[in-house]
């Protein structure tokens, strides 16, 4: 049943994409970039959704000479914004492999099938989402210790990072990676929900 539903989702999305040519059976994603370390406020404020998701499948697409990978994800837990727990979504990232040709764009989120992540998302094209601040908006979910408690960890493969300006140390904002690193999923969800209410209040 679940499989049927997912297949229907994939069908609908691909129909929406209007893909126009050959299909092969590979997809990955990849790696060169320089980014400014994203602050917690900016990550939450610029996102339209935050959720714990599990990638199911991915589709790499040529668009004007550039490869984009669209990853179909299950929404395991919607934390804030547009998504619904138990639903699904498509997430767009730069790079991937189409046919035998690959494109590497360092610093993108790495959405491997079956690997759960907390994602901060913003609206992208064609009904898909982009990951806010690219790889910096992805926090892996890992089981910790004998109890198997689920914790979130920052993405460590985000390309070259520029720390926030140090002109006025008192004014340097908290970085998203520092705020969430090592929290349990429950704790992280609470932090996100509180900040979300602050930045997305009507």
């Amino acid at each position: 049943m679940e499989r049927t539903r997912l297949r229907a989702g994939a069908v609908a999305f691909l129909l929406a994409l209007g893909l126009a040519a050959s299909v092969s059976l590979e997809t990955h994603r990849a790696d060169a970039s320089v980014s400014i370390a994203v602050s917690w406020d900016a990550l939450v404020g610029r996102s339209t959704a935050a959720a714990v998701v599990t990638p199911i499948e991915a589709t790499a697409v040529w668009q004007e000479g550039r490869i984009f990978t669209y990853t179909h994800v299950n929404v395991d837990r919607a934390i804030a914004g547009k998504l619904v727990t138990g639903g699904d979504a498509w997430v767009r990232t730069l790079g991937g492999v189409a046919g035998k040709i690959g494109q590497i764009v360092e610093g993108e989120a790495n959405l491997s099938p079956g690997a759960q992540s907390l994602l901060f998302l913003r609206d992208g094209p064609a009904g898909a989402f982009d990951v806010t601040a690219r790889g910096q908006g992805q926090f892996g979910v890992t089981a910790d210790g004998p109890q198997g408690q689920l914790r979130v960890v920052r993405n460590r493969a985000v390309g070259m990072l520029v720390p926030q300006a140090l002109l006025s140390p008192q004014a340097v904002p908290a970085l998203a990676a520092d705020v969430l690193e090592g929290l349990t999923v429950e704790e992280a969800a609470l932090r996100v929900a509180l900040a979300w209410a602050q930045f997305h209040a009507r």
Partner: protein
Amino acid sequence: MRASASLRPFATVVLGVSVSVATGRQAHAFCRTSTCPLPPNWDPADAGACVPADFVQDCQTLSPPISPLPLWWRNACVSYDVQEDASQQIPYDTADAIAAESFSKWTGTICANGSQVGRVSIDLRDFGPVECDLVQYNENQGNQHVIVFRDQGSPDFDSTNTLGLTTVTFDEDTGEIYDADVEINSSKTLSVTDPAPPDGYDFPSIMTHEAGHFLGMAHSVSTETTMYAQYMQGTTTKRILSADDMAGICTIYPPDGTRAVDPSVTASGFIQEDACDPTPRHGFQSQCAQPQKSSCSVAGSEAATSSAVLLVAMSGVGTIGAVRRGRRRWAQGERSARRRG
């Protein structure tokens, strides 16, 4: 990268300076870009290694499995082009001069390995200004290896946090690089002076780092290198290659004109370079290519793949056309804004 450890490292000397700065046997900190992406939980600098111990197995668990291969350019000469509009902050001539200087730091490296001493066996050639301002690789039309500024940010990546982005296109079976393009987010405050202003992002530093990626270098384990994955605003130190950066470029492109490749590509681990021809793959053209093909690939269940095949066969241009039009409209708006400026 995993592969680079098994390839012969070179000692290096700085061009024009007869001082050896690395020995052939010492441990190195440089890493090479691989066809397989790093897992999100891996930071080479934190871990002290380019890839996790189980990287090869990890890559085999991807769907489909992938063999991690280091990237390399086959030809002895590779072209690049600065997009003709450059940026309101950095005019074409300045951008072009800085790009040339950035690349020459890499290609001017002198390598030493026993009795073999010489310059790295790759050259970069400036093909001049090009019209195309899109990052593209075209299989059926000409290409350009463009360095393009984004004064208005970009619809393709998060412009709020991204300063520079290099897109490298490669052959998945060999790791051969087919194309590389560099985008610079000039909606941020870029500087070219030395010293750089405290609030400036030093364009020569960013460009030298991106040039390393263009050539197949990945982030280094060492904090002292141009390829280390952190840059401090207001600094210019990344303009200067470290001994380890040079050891990396010497390993990929040794003076004897070979290319260090994965042993799965050739048993010797080396391929002879092609004679100098900087023309991009499928020819050079200044203009952006007209889209001729879209293709997709699907990883996941066979059922989902079948659905994709069916739908792809049935569907037309739809939303992808809208995405294309969006990118083109955005590019036209960017050009208009620069001309008004």
